[in-house]
Every structure is written in C-alpha cells, then in structure tokens.
C-alpha cells in the first residue's frame, strides 16, 4: 500500500536575485516499508524535498503547488497543529549534521524523550526508560549513563546515532534520512547504515534516503530517484539504475566516482557545475553539461518518460522513467555509453544494459 | 529645572570659616611677591613676574587670560561677560580658561600664581566682620593662602587692615574701627587690587504652610535663626489655612512639623569636628553659644545673661615669649606636638626654622595667671539653663567646651584669637584674647557649649574619640538648644523634637535683659517637629518642594527662583549674604602694575548686567567692597561710602579707555588700537 504519494510538488524561494524554483514538479511514491533513495548533488533540491514533506519550508520558501499525500491525507491541506501531530510522530527525519541538529544545551536523552512525551503522552519516567532503550538499540554503549550526556560529550558517530534514536522515538511510518552518514568516517558510516536498515526492518518503517553517495544508495535502497536542478531526471529500481542507467547525468555521476581497484588513470567528469537555479538553462537543464546534447536539448524540455516506450511517466506511481529527449526520439545522435560490470556476477536485468 | 550640578553643593560644603559660608571664588593672578617687593602696587614696574622670566614686550591690544572654575556655570558666564566687555574696548584680546574646582583651587593657592599674568575669578564668603572682605584678598600673609591670588603685598595696606582690628584703641572704640575701615575701602578703591563683582543673597523657598519665615545671611544659621530669634523678634510657625503673607505675631500657631530640604548630608553633629555649613545647620538647633547676633551682626548675650570686657592690655604675641616652649618643625612646617598651638612666636617661621617657639594651653594658662593677655571678657551665665540630659549649665561646661575645641577641625579659627578660658565661679567664666582685638566680642565666644557629661563619657570610653558626638557613632548630641535630635539616618533625614525644658521657655523671653519685643512674642520656638531631608541635587530638592514632600528649602539655582516667586503656592525669601565673586588683576606683571589699568578693568565689569543676566537679579552688584551685612562695624556711614566709591565701580568703558590710553602714553607701550 502506498504510504507517501508526492504529486507535482513545486517549491519556490524568493531571493533578491529572483524566484528560485528549488523543486520543480516532483512526483514519486513510497510504499510502506520501502527504502527509497533520492540522489543528486548539492543544489538538486533533495533537502528542500525532504523538508517539504514535513511542511518545514520556511520563509522565503513556499510550496507553490502539488500535493503530498501521506497515508491518504494531503499534508499540505492540514492545519498547523495537525501537521505537528504528524511530524516526529509518523514522519521523522534524520538530519545530515548531527552536531548542529542536536541542541547543545539539553541532554541527548532529553532530546529523545521530549518527542515521546509530546506525541505519545509518556510521563517523564516512561519517556526516559524508552529513550535509554532506544539509545541502546542504536548502538550506544552504556546507554543509561549516556542518557544524561550532552551532545558535545558524544563522538560524531554517537551523535548521529542519537539523531537516529530521536527519529525513531515515536515509531514513525516514514523516516526521512537526509545524508545521514555524509559527515561520518567510513567505519562509522558502515555501521550506521546497517543500523538504519535493521531498525527500519524492525519497525517496518519506510525510508526516504537522501544522499549524493551512490555507494550508500546501492547498499540501502530499493528504488531510486535522481534529481538535477530541482527536477527528477531518472527513476528506477536500484539495480536498474546501476546496471542500466538511462539518463546521461546518472551515467556521468557514476563514472566520476573513484572506486577501489579501479585502475583508470583519469576519472570521467561531468564538465561544468550545477546551474544557478535563478537561471536554469532552457530546454533540458542538464544540456550544458551533457556530452550528448544536441540543438533539440536546448529547445525542448524533456519530460519523464518510460525509456522503453517513450510514454509520459510523470505520475507518482511511475516505476521507471527518465527525462531525456532520447526516449521520445528527439535526439539524432543517441546516447553513446556503455556500462560494464567487472567480475562474474550475472546481471539481473538481462542484456539490455547498453543502448 | 536647575542647571546647577551637585558639584556645587560639594563646593559650598568644603569651605570653612567661623561664620561665613564660603563659596569659592576666583581671582586674577599676580605674582607672589617676594619679601623685598616694594609692594605698593605700582612700585614694582619691571614686570619680572612673567612666568618664564622673559619680560615680554607689552603691546595693545593686550593679551590676557581670564580663569575660573568650570563647575560653577554662573561664574563662568560672568567671566565670559567680563571678557567680552574687555574685548569690546578693542584694547584686549581675551581668552577664558576654566578648570575643575579642585584643580583651580590648587592653581590659585600656588604662591606663584600671580606671576603668570592671568586674571583669576573666585568666590569667597565673608562674615559680619568687615575684615573678611579685605583681608583674605589683600593681606600679604595670605599670598598662597586664601585668597590673595595676585600676590598683593602692600605693607601700608597690611598695616591699615591690622590696625583696624587689633590694638587697644580699636578694640575699645568701635567708631575708630569704622573710620579705619572707611580708609581701607577708599584705599582699595584707588589701588583697585581686586574687583568685587557682586554679593550673593541667601534664598529660602517655602510653601504656604510656612509662616513668618525670614532668612539669615548665612545658610548654616538659616533655620535656627528663622525658628526663633528674639534679637529680631523672629519666629516661624506652621499654619495650613491662613494667608502666609499675613505674619502678625498674634497669629502664631503652636505645633506642627516643618519639613526642610537640606542641600547636603552633614559631616558630623560634633561641633568642632565638622567644618561644612550643613553640619552647622543641623547642629544649630541643638547647640547654643554664649552670644547671639542680629541681622547686622550686633552681638547679644545669649547663654550668658550678660558679658563685659573687663580688661584690655597692650600685649602683642611676642610678649608671650617667656612662656613659650620650643618645638621641632619639619620642612613643610608641620609642628611636632600633640598640643593645641595657640601662638607661634611671630619671629619664628615653622617652614624655615627647625624649631619654633610656641604657646600651648598649659603655658597660656600660666600667662593668664601672670596677667599676660590681650583682653578678658567675662560672661555671667543664666542660671537654670539645662542640657537635654538634664545637666545644668555652669562655667565648667564653657571651659570644657573650649578645651574640646583644641586640635579640632576648627581650632585654627578658634585659637587665632582665643588665648584661654577660665571659670571665675560657678556661673561666671572669663575668656581671654591673645591681643587686643576689635572682633573679640564676636570671635571669642564662637564655640558651642557642650555637655560635660557627654565629654566625660567620651573621655572615659575607650571606643569613643573626640569627634564622635554623632548618631553615627551611637552618641546623640546633647546641647541646650530648643530642639533635640530624635532620629538621624545618614544621607537621608534627621528628625528633631522640641525640647520641653528649653531654658528660654522656662524663664520667659522677657527675662532676657536686652529683649524689647512685643508681648505676643513667644518664649521659644513654636514648631513641634523639624524634619530635615538631605537632598543634594537642586532639581530633586526643587521637585520635592513642588511635590509637597518638603515645606521649605534653599540654595536653589537662581533660574528657578523666579518660577517659584511667580507662583501663588510658594514664597521666596531673599536676604543679602556675604558671599562674593571677585577678580584680581596680575598687579605684579606689566602693564597691570599701573593702577590706572586696574581701575580701567574695574570700570569694565558690567556689574548690573551681570546681576541681571547671569544671576537673574538674585545677587547684588558690589558698589563698594563691603556688603550691607557688614556695615555695622565696617563703615561710619554706609550711604556716604557708597556714594563716594560707587563711581569707581560703575561700568564706564569711556573712562576705562581714557585710563588705558594714559597708561599706554605714559609707558610708551606699543598700541595698534
């Protein structure tokens, strides 16, 4: 059953330089218990999307259109206090930088307990016991003692665990994890990812994982959406994405990552940088950086389409989609790239890995 | 609201003189005269006193700096007016410099101040004694002291001033004394060593509940005088209903409470251990002296039923030589003894000599016993006068009180005339003067008579010292006065109650021999309670009066007095007082050594304008060097004196220019005017 359905979500920010459309016509859905990845570089609109889900976009930002149906209810239609009942309770968020997301002047335990007192009506003792349990569950040793520690007494990894504990406190249905491990060392990252995965399973929680790290996506997610300049450019299952990417940006991203054991002398790069959202290029917003760009890309703004059929696939339920003119037959040169997989594993998607 | 700052109050507080409240004055500076200066003003024409020693070419317009203390804005304004007046003639280029009060005092008390060539302006406070209007300014002994700023060193004038006060003749003949002072005023008018600009007034502002209040020239006596003074048939009473301008003695109401806004917190209730005017103000309700005074300064016996000058001898201070003991003195002049120094041998100089011959109380008693003294005044005390503790006043109290004044804060002014006090019998006491002194009647009895029991207590108690007669030392002051101190809170308030057994009431005022007032005149003060609130800030004090939190206050800025005066709800009482502002020109510096230039300066002080513009009319122009309050002993005929001298003090730029031109011509000074 669909837990979250986002339709045509558009968020704008009013700045001195003009209106910035940080999220533009975003549609996707997440099933109960599903792990959904949102991938993109900074400025792609990932975090804005995340905050929008909880209606936490603040001035000068504004959700200008779209709907966010959570468990059947459009969050954008709710009153402020109804949204508050959902926040932290049914939708919770893991922040990227635990150090800044924790209030430095309250104990970690208190910060976990307060949401429970508020949403679940626990008394102090219940909230405390449950918070200690949560700390233990997220892998903090000596949880009872650590309950009354302040954030600065926690290492970075433990802070991140604490933030996870806060998010899990009220047993949410949807966990939005915004770059939950980016600030951490790999050794910690690995553990935390495992922890999130295990806990999500235990609580049957759906996860919307926001990251720029394709490695993390590969490890954790079932389905992925790639964003570029506020727009979705590709949606796919994780296997499809890695073994059969359909959008040139996805391809570029993947080839620019250095990998252990990769003997390439030079990394592939995507030239240039993400456009300034005040002045998004005409047509396909990726075209200035796209090695396959043609004149058409400058003119026509591609829609999300099913790459196999070329049918429009902009609705939230679309499983597989890419926003490239190639799939509507408007490119003359085609996309010229190849995905190779080293090793002897069998590709799950059969033989259509290349174009 | 008032522009006067609280600094003013403090300024006022710091001056100590036997009677007069001293305000600070500024003077124009002339060099400290060395001893061999011929010193009669224009005799010292070589202008060696120019600070840096290099005589500068004198040229007109003459550059001159006028100086005064910055915290007194009225005075600064006055100096600026004078400077403008000088400039207007075209013969001067002026510069007005102001200094913080303490700095300025230190500056003008420097004996070399006169050499700097500046014109200083300060305020001083005089008394009923005419000497206080000439001696401090002009006596050569006061160079570097208070306050001969310009270094006037004129032996002839010194002699004139000394002989107007001391010596057998003047001490026995007041008329002679008046004549001699008249000579001095004329001499000073001619030499123009100083230019007195104005005489102050004492103000008192009260609401309509206060009846019959009349002011006193010195604010330390303001309240005690107004409350009850048979010398002037003066009594104040409280009445909320009657018209306060109708002050017939038959309307006197008994009882009530008078709340007074007092300008300062009193330093102490111990009479000789306080020198500020407010201390005297608060003490004068509690303590009394052997004598009292009327508004002209005439002396009447008070605690003494009568007194008599029984002996005057031609003695000078050197005559005590054979009784003197020798005491070491350090370089600064500090004399190494714990005894009160009564007389220092006139030939000895504590600063220059290692040892000085001095007379202390013990030797003074010996001298008196041998009949060596200047004067003897014998006081017959009223019998039956009681202190607040029930103790009866006897000669013992008087003698002990004089002793208690030894080495106190006011010993300098007490023992510059007093030689010794001695009980002749239980109710008779003699006070001896060092030399024949025309001021002796006023000066000698100038001590408050204290309770012997209290003095014994202080001596007996190890924790108590002299100076501890003060509620802050847990000792309630005990006197013979009409009020007892009931409660005192430092910096806040003092509460007095009428003393039930006050001696005048007991005896009846009619029994005082000199009293010739009407029968309705009460036998003592009629107000039951006095509450003093100590409020240093003028604006706050004025506010408290307006808000009916006090009934009466004084010492407000002149700018506010008109407002009160114009209001039907308040009465402003003004009497001429003894404080004066004066300028001194640097008479030892060329070209000021020519008295004509000083006379010209005197003509350039716009006295009437100053009084009106600067002081809003609440001061009087100084047409002579002596104010009305001192006229009793200071001049034979005040009106005649004023008629003669006033022309030299009139604002007269034309005459001034004439004089200046003469000076320029006679000395051949350069002039581009």
């Amino acid at each position, binding site marked *: 059953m669909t837990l979250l359905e986002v339709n045509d979500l558009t968020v704008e920010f009013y700045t001195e330089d003009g209106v910035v459309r940080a999220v533009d016509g975003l549609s996707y859905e997440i099933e109960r218990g599903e792990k959904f990845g949102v991938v993109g570089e900074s400025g792609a609109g990932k975090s804005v999307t995340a905050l929008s889900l909880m209606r936490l976009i603040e001035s000068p930002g504004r959700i200008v259109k779209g709907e966010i149906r959570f468990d059947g209810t459009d969050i954008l239609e709710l009153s402020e206090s109804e949204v508050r009942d959902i926040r932290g309770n049914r939708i919770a968020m893991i922040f990227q930088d635990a150090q800044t997301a924790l209030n430095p002047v309250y104990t970690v335990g208190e910060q976990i307990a307060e949401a429970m007192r508020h949403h679940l009506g626990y008394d102090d003792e219940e909230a405390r*016991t*449950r918070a200690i349990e949560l700390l233990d569950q997220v892998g903090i*040793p*000596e949880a009872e003692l650590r309950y009354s520690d302040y954030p600065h007494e926690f290492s970075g990894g433990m802070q991140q665990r604490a933030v996870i504990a806060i998010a899990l406190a009220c047993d949410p249905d949807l966990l939005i994890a915004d770059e939950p491990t980016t600030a951490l060392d790999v*050794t910690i990252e690995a553990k935390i990812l495992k922890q999130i995965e295990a806990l999500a399973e235990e609580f049957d929680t759906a996860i919307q994982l926001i990251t720029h790290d394709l490695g993390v996506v590969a490890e954790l997610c079932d389905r992925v959406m790639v964003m570029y300049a506020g727009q979705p450019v590709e949606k796919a299952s994780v296997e499809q994405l890695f073994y059969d990417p359909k959008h040139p940006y996805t391809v570029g*991203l993947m080839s620019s*990552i250095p*990998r252990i054991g990769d003997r390439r*002398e030079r990394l592939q790069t995507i030239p240039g*940088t993400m456009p300034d959202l005040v002045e998004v290029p005409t047509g396909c917003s990726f075209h200035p950086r796209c090695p396959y760009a043609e004149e058409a890309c400058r003119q026509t703004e591609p829609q999300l389409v099913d790459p196999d059929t070329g049918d429009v696939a902009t609705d939230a339920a679309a499983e597989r989609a890419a926003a490239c003119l190639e799939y509507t037959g408007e490119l003359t040169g085609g996309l010229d790239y190849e995905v190779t997989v080293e090793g002897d594993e069998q590709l799950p998607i059969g033989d259509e890995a290349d174009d | 609201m008032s522009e006067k700052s609280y600094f003013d109050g403090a300024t006022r507080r710091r001056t100590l003189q036997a009677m007069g409240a001293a305000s600070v004055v500024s003077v124009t500076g002339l060099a400290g005269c060395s001893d061999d200066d011929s010193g009669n003003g224009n005799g010292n024409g070589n202008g060696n006193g120019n600070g840096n020693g290099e005589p500068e070419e004198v040229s007109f317009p003459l550059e001159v700096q006028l100086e005064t203390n910055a915290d007194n804005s009225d005075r600064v304004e006055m100096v600026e007016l004078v400077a403008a007046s000088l400039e207007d003639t075209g013969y001067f280029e002026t510069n007005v410099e102001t200094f913080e009060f303490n700095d300025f005092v230190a500056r003008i008390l420097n004996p070399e101040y006169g050499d700097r060539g500046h014109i200083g302006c300060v305020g001083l406070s005089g008394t009923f004694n005419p000497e206080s209007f000439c001696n401090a300014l002009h006596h050569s002994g006061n160079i570097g002291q208070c306050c001969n700023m310009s270094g006037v060193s004129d032996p002839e004038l010194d002699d004139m001033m000394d002989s107007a006060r001391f010596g057998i003749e003047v001490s026995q003949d007041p008329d002679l004394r008046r004549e001699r002072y008249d000579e001095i005023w004329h001499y000073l008018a001619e030499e123009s060593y100083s230019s007195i600009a104005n005489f102050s007034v004492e103000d008192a502002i009260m609401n309509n509940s206060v009846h019959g209040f009349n002011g006193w020239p010195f604010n330390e006596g303001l309240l005690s005088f107004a409350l009850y003074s048979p010398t002037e048939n003066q009594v104040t009473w409280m009445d909320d209903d009657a018209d306060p301008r109708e002050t017939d003695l038959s309307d006197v109401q008994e009882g009530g409470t008078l709340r007074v806004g007092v300008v300062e917190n009193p330093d102490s209730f111990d009479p000789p251990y306080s020198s500020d005017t407010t201390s005297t103000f608060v003490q004068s309700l509690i303590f009394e002296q052997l004598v009292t005074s009327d508004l002209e300064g005439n002396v009447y016996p008070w605690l003494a039923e009568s007194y008599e000058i029984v002996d005057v001898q031609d003695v000078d201070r050197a005559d005590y030589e054979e009784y003197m003991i020798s005491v070491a003195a350090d370089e600064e002049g500090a004399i190494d003894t714990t005894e009160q120094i009564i007389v220092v041998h006139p030939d000895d100089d504590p600063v220059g000599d290692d040892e000085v011959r001095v007379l202390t109380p013990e030797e003074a008693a010996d001298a008196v016993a041998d009949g060596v003294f200047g004067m003897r005044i014998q006081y017959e005390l009223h019998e039956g006068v009681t202190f607040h503790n029930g103790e009866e006043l006897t000669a013992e109290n008087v003698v002990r009180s004089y002793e208690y004044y030894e080495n106190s804060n006011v010993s300098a002014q007490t023992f510059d005339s007093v030689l010794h006090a001695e009980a002749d019998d239980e109710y008779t006491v003699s006070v001896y003067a060092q030399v024949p002194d025309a001021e002796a009647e006023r000066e000698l009895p100038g001590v408050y008579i204290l309770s012997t029991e209290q003095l014994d207590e202080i001596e007996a108690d190890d924790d108590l010292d002299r100076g501890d007669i003060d509620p802050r030392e847990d000792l309630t002051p005990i006197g013979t006065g009409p009020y007892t101190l009931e409660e005192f809170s430092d910096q806040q308030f003092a509460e007095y109650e009428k003393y039930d057994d006050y001696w005048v009431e007991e005896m009846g005022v009619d029994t005082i021999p000199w009293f010739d007032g009407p029968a309705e005149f009460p036998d003592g003060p009629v107000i039951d309670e006095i509450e003093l609130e100590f409020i240093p800030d003028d604006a706050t004090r004025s506010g408290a009066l307006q808000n009916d939190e006090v009934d009466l206050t004084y010492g407000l800025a002149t700018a506010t007095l008109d407002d009160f005066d114009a209001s039907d709800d308040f009465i402003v009482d003004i009497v001429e007082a003894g404080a004066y502002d004066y300028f001194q020109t640097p008479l030892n510096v060329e070209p000021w050594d020519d008295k004509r230039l000083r006379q010209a300066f005197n003509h350039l002080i716009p006295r009437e304008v100053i009084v009106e513009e600067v002081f809003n009319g609440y001061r009087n122009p100084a047409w002579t060097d002596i104010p009305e309050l001192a006229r009793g002993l200071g001049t034979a005929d005040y009106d005649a004196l004023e008629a003669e001298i006033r022309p030299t003090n009139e604002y007269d730029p034309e005459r001034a220019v004439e004089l200046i031109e003469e000076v320029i011509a006679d000395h051949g000074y350069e002039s581009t005017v």
Partner: protein
Amino acid sequence: MTEPIIRVEGLRKYYDTTGGFVDRLLGNEQLVKAVDGVDLELYEGETLGIVGESGCGKTSLGRAMLRLIEPTDGSVYYHGEDLTELSSRKLRAVRKDLQYIFQDPLSSLNPRMTVGDIVGEPLDIHGLASGAERNERIYELLDVVGLSPSHADRYPHEFSGGQRQRIGIARALAVDPEVIVCDEPVSALDVSVQAQILNLLEDLQEEFGLSYIFIAHDLSVVEHISDRVAVMYLGEIVETGTTEEVYQPPNHPYAEALLSAIPEPDPLWDGDQILLSGSVPSPLDPPSGCRFHSRCPKIIQPDGVDVDPSEWRSAMNFKHRIDDGSSVEAVVARTRDEDPAEVSRERLDTLVRSEFDLPDRLSDPDLETAFSEAIDAVHDDDLDAAADALADRFRSPCEAEPPDAIDVGGGHRIACHLQDEQYADERLRHADHAD
C-alpha cells in the same frame, strides 16, 4: 631509491589542553597527542596519500610538516634541511616551495579580496612579479586551473565550491612550488566536481613536476590519486607502502577494516564489511600497546587461548567495558522491563552474553571460569572485583607492547604484531576464519 624530497622523522605535535597554571602545578597536565612520532618520506613527483578517520591527526601532521603549526618534537628535512630548525625568515623563503591547500576553500580565501589579489598575493609576498607581469601571471594561473582571466576581478563568494578550490590551487601554484600539501581538497565537493579537481591535480603534477601530500579520509579518492599511502590511526602511522601494497590486499587490520567499510556503488556487491567495535579512543589517553587493540578484530590471543577471533574480540570488549565502567548499568543497559541491577545472576549472565554477543559458554573453559567469576562480581555490583577476575585470562599481547613498524620490503612498513614472526600462528588462525 633516490633521496626523498621531504623526510619526516619522529614528528610529534601535542596540544596542551591543561586548564591553566594551577592545574599544571598540580600535575593535571592534559596533552592531546595529535601526532605522535611519525616517520614519512615524500619522493619527488609522487603523491603520498595520508588516510585515517577524523581525529587521527592527519591535518595536524600536514600542518606540522610545513610548520604552519609548531611541531612539538621531531624533524622535517626538506632537501636535507631541517625545517623545524629554521629561523622564521629562512622558513618564509622555503615556504615558497611548500604550499598548502585547505579543505574549506571559502574560509581560507579572504572574502574581501578579489580572486586576482588572492592569487597575486603570494607573488607580492615573495616578490616574484609585479605590474603587467603580475597580471599576466595571474591570468595564466587562472587559466591553468580552468578559470577564465575575467574571473580575476570577482570575489570568492561569487564562485561555486569547485571553482573556489581551483582558486586555492591557483594561489598555491603562484609561487611555483615543489610540494603541495592538499588537506582534504575535495571532501567538500560534489562528486562530479570532485572528479574535475582530482583530474586537475593530476594534470598539474604532470605539468609542473609537483609532489603532493594528499590528506583525505576517503580511501577511494586516496587510492585513485596516490602513488604511496600512509594509514594513520590515533597520531601514528600504522602502515606505509605503495598504493598497491597497502590496498591489495590490505595488510594491517585497520587498513583492512577501513577498506571494507566503503559502501560500494554496486547494489549486488556482497563483500563482507568489517565493523569495528567502539569508536576512536580519545587522543588524550590513547590505549596502551598497539593503539588499535581496543577495536582490532584480529587482536592477538594470549598463549593457551585459542578461540574464534570474533569471540575473543567480544570477550575483550566485555573486559574493556568492565574496566571503564562504574556500575552494572554501564555493562548492561536498563530496559523498560528489566533493571540489570535487580535481575538474578542467571538472567544477568544471559543479558551480558547477549549484549556482548558471546556464546552461552565460552569455548575456552579457563575463559569461561574467569567470565563466570566476573559475572558474579558484577551481580554483586563490584566492578573492581570483576575486573580482577578477568585480568589474568583476558589479556592480549597487543595491549602490552606497541608494535614496531616492520619493513616487509621496499619501504612497505606495517606496524602490527601480526607481522611479528612470533605470532605467525595467529596469522594462520585469521586466514582460517576468513574462509
């Protein structure tokens, strides 16, 4: 091998966090041993990667090497000259050849200077160019790092993160240096831009014959760019060698764990991740012996003990918890249902075993006995006694002695007791369990 261009010997950098004079007097001195005896060489034209977790002392090492911070002890020879001995005037002259690129380009660029001035500043300081020549040089440098000369008049905030890093690089290049220390130069950048910068650095190295010290926590980036790699842990270098030697296969257990933890961008990749227990200990009070022993999955077992390595690791974790703890709750957390201080001895035993992932009976009877005694003591709330009970049996040689850096050939140095022949058996055991 040729003479290294930079040779670091026994370099130390301690930070004093002592409270003040009084504490020093009382002997409460607190020293953070950020860099604690590091030996390194950098050869001409090569890139030496330095990897390690945050807080391991990488950045302090980089800065102490250039004396941007004053080293506590040790020497840094540059062309045979000891930088730590140089006068500040001489040092300034040498600095021209030794440049530093910062992690956060924005905070290291003066926001009130134009890019041209930022890049030109080193030219002015070292008097290398002026006037038209200076401008020409600035344009050239901007061009070299992929910026346009027209950028010279703009301010840092007008640029993206990658462009700012290019500016930083241009500034470093301005003085024509020999060595550049790159401190996490790409970790703040998006992947697509990161690749651009890494390529740029490689191009520049080739063009100008630069030598890099490349500090990063990202092992894949380090592997990609480095010729040789040094792995740092708690202020010490635990392994140095060519990239190949260090990575394929990893030798030091720490390097191995680091490598295995990297999330692989491949959904079907199923390599085993080694999850290190605990977190990095405080550099104020580093563990005795081998500093990694408290987390090492291959911690050596003492003579007479032969159990599964993971069991041994768990047992040691239990011991450390007992040593550091102060109460039962410190050993086993209280839950809503249970308070470990209240439960029965048996229940406590179960809880502890589950907490530390220990089997129902330890496979070594001696260990089991000691463990049992410890549980008794914990049950009595006497943690000291529990610690005593474990002290004898639960002991690893790794705790006792710090390992020497053993050269396993060609400058490949590994500081691990497992390299010591006396623990050859132990190596075998791990080889067995790896299957």
